[in-house]
């Protein structure tokens, strides 16, 4: 008989429908069988396992649409196993991997390897992007049709921009055949080359080579033109400037099929967090100034920015304990995505449901994944959480193999208590 679990005494939250009610939810196997305020009003029948959530919130599990791990090629940074453990501890039930591994995920075999490893680990749901161009070198497009059949959720060169306008036009145009999305890392590489942090007064004082905001803005302007020219669907990863938000806002108003996301560090930190050469604050694109940070929050609030992704880029100590110019870009984010997203709620910038939408149903919709909502028959991917409990980020307790977080010791509010994937409890908060 299929296992049935009743989650009772819960605050049910579904950003897709606006549901926010006390009630119960029943899972049957890997699916949600039923839910609602009056479910089990007369008590839970025998034979059903009961989980009393004690008034905690119950929402769809998080869908993290931008995660880089080191497997294959750099397993010392993070593996599918370590990243999966970090993800479920962070309330994430599905993560989408970038193709910038070694080798690059540009062939069917690479996607099959990821799928096999994910099945073996069997914690979080693992999806993968395939590279948009062979070797993510930006020249020739990949076998998008075959890759899509093998499970690629969309196409992107990941941490690299598709720099050539001609290649970008072809990628957008060809991906249309399969109605697949192209995800761009918007940064004009020749303008950003050699850069280490945001261009401006702080970079000048520190003697660090700056990356101008225009590197991002120019690329977004160009790609929007190419989108108009080619059709297709385009998504900009981690936007960071006020102009980027404004350009995308206007493009959406014109009816272009464009979406975008940002990452917590772009709304929770600024370039001042580089401080005295803190390499943990070295990210690509770089942390910007306060006005840009506010524009990102504004873009999330009015829905111009669709999603929040962790932009998890693990780097081991050898890559970060270096002079700033030599240190690698990237921060880990799987276990801080949820509390930092909730920060927007606690600061009164977003409602709880709107914030949850940015990490559940909206990224799922962008990627055509049937996830991120509470509905009868939907996958039983859930997170139970306490939105209020205060705690302090303690990187030493994180499951990721790498510890490169600029949020160490940050006081945050709200934490996952239990993560359920396909009806199975895969993680529970201890003590």
């Amino acid at each position, binding site marked *: 008989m299929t296992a049935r679990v009743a989650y009772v005494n819960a605050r049910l939250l579904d950003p897709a429908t606006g549901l926010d009610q006390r009630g119960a939810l029943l899972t049957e196997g890997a699916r949600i069988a039923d839910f609602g305020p009056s479910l089990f009003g007369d008590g839970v029948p025998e034979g059903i396992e009961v989980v009393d959530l004690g008034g905690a919130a119950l929402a769809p599990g998080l869908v993290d649409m931008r995660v880089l791990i080191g497997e294959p090629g750099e397993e010392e940074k993070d593996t599918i196993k370590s990243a999966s453990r970090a993800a479920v501890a962070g309330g994430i039930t599905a993560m989408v991997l970038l193709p910038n591994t070694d080798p690059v995920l540009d062939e069917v075999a690479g996607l099959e390897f990821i799928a096999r490893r994910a099945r073996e680990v069997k914690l979080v749901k693992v999806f993968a992007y395939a590279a948009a161009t062979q070797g993510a070198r930006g020249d020739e497009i990949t076998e998008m049709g075959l890759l899509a059949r093998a499970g690629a959720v969309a196409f992107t060169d990941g941490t690299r921009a598709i720099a050539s306008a001609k290649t970008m036009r072809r990628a957008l145009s060809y991906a249309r055949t399969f109605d697949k999305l192209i995800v761009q890392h918007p940064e004009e590489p020749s303008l950003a080359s050699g850069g280490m942090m945001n*261009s*401006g*007064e702080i*970079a*000048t*004082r*520190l*003697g*660090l*080579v*700056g990356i*101008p905001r225009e590197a991002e803005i120019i690329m977004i302007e160009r790609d929007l033109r190419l989108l108009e020219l080619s059709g297709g669907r385009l998504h900009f990863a981690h936007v960071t400037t006020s102009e980027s938000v404004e350009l995308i806002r206007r493009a959406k108003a014109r009816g272009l099929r464009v979406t975008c996301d940002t990452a917590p560090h772009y709304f929770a930190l600024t370039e001042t967090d580089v401080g*005295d*050469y803190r390499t943990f604050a070295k990210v690509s694109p770089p942390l910007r100034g306060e006005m840009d940070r506010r524009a990102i929050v504004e873009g999330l609030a009015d829905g111009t920015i669709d999603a929040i992704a962790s932009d998890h880029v693990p780097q081991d100590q*050898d890559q970060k*304990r*270096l*002079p*700033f*110019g*030599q240190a690698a870009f990237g921060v880990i984010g799987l276990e801080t995505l949820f509390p930092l997203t909730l920060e927007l709620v606690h600061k009164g910038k977003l409602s709880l449901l709107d914030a949850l939408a940015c990490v559940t149903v909206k990224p799922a919709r962008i990627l055509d994944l049937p996830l991120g909502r509470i509905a009868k028959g939907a996958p039983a991917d859930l997170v139970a959480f306490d939105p209020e409990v205060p705690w302090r980020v303690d990187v030493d307790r994180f499951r990721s193999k790498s510890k490169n977080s600029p949020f160490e010791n940050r006081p945050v509010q709200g934490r996952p208590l239990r993560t359920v994937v396909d009806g199975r409890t895969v993680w529970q908060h201890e003590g």
Partner: protein
Amino acid sequence: MSAIPSHDQLFPHRHLLGIEGLRAGEITQILDLADSYVDQNRQPVKKSSLLAGRTQVNLFFENSTRTRTSFELAGKRLGADVINMSSDGSSVKKGETLIDTAMTLNAMHLDALVVRHAESGAVKLLADKVNCSVINAGDGHHEHPTQALLDALAIRRRLGRLDGLIVAICGDILHSRVARSNIHLLNAMGARVRCVAPPTLLPSQIERLGVEVHHSMKTGLKDADVVMMLRLQTERMSGQYVPSTREYFYFYGLDYEKLEVAKPDAVIMHPGPMNRGVEIDSEVADDLKRSMILDQVELGVAVRMAVLDLLTRDRRGTNA
């Protein structure tokens, strides 16, 4: 000339990583003490035993004969044991990081570590990991504090003050740690600083460091008391930042014609080594009445002695 300062005054910083963050009084303290070392250096017997038994290591990850020799002389004249270590990157190639290097040096119980590195912030990274005093001898495009101090000492000795002077810093400011340190120092001491360069050689928002920006030598040098020329790196001349040395010299090279708009007694400085005929005309560079280039070299040793003395005082005890 200032009176010779008391030798028991403590300096409130453990390291000298940059000029930014130093107060005017602290800068004056270094300059005053350096003045007394200038006199000592001009004696037939130049050596004292102030740092006898102390160990100073000059760790240069980037070549620099001039700065390294100046620090070496400074240490030796104060009686310290001075070791020069240069890194051709061999230990780095073997996988040793800067932090490993710091740990190794720490185990040798140094008193002072003088570091030059091609990366901005690298000296700070080392300073955070070692127990001795660290002196920045130039890190990337960030700071070169002793150069700014010796420039200030040269100006003060020649013109009697820093306050209220107009100082034009000309040339490759984008890549210059000397320019950044000088901007911080001259601002702290009340001078008016101008940066004169083509826009391609100016860092973003440099005016927010409290300087006037000029793209023309004519306006930039007008009524200047001091003209500080910077070295143009040869690799910047291949059409990347400026189209050619010929064009650069025509618009930004210092010659008598451009100097005409400055004050009649304006002095000329250069941190060396000079590219004659690129950023400076030989005739001007060798004009002993105007050029302070050799004074700068002489005073460099005295300034570095003062810095070594001040930074090691707390561990020597005030009676040393």
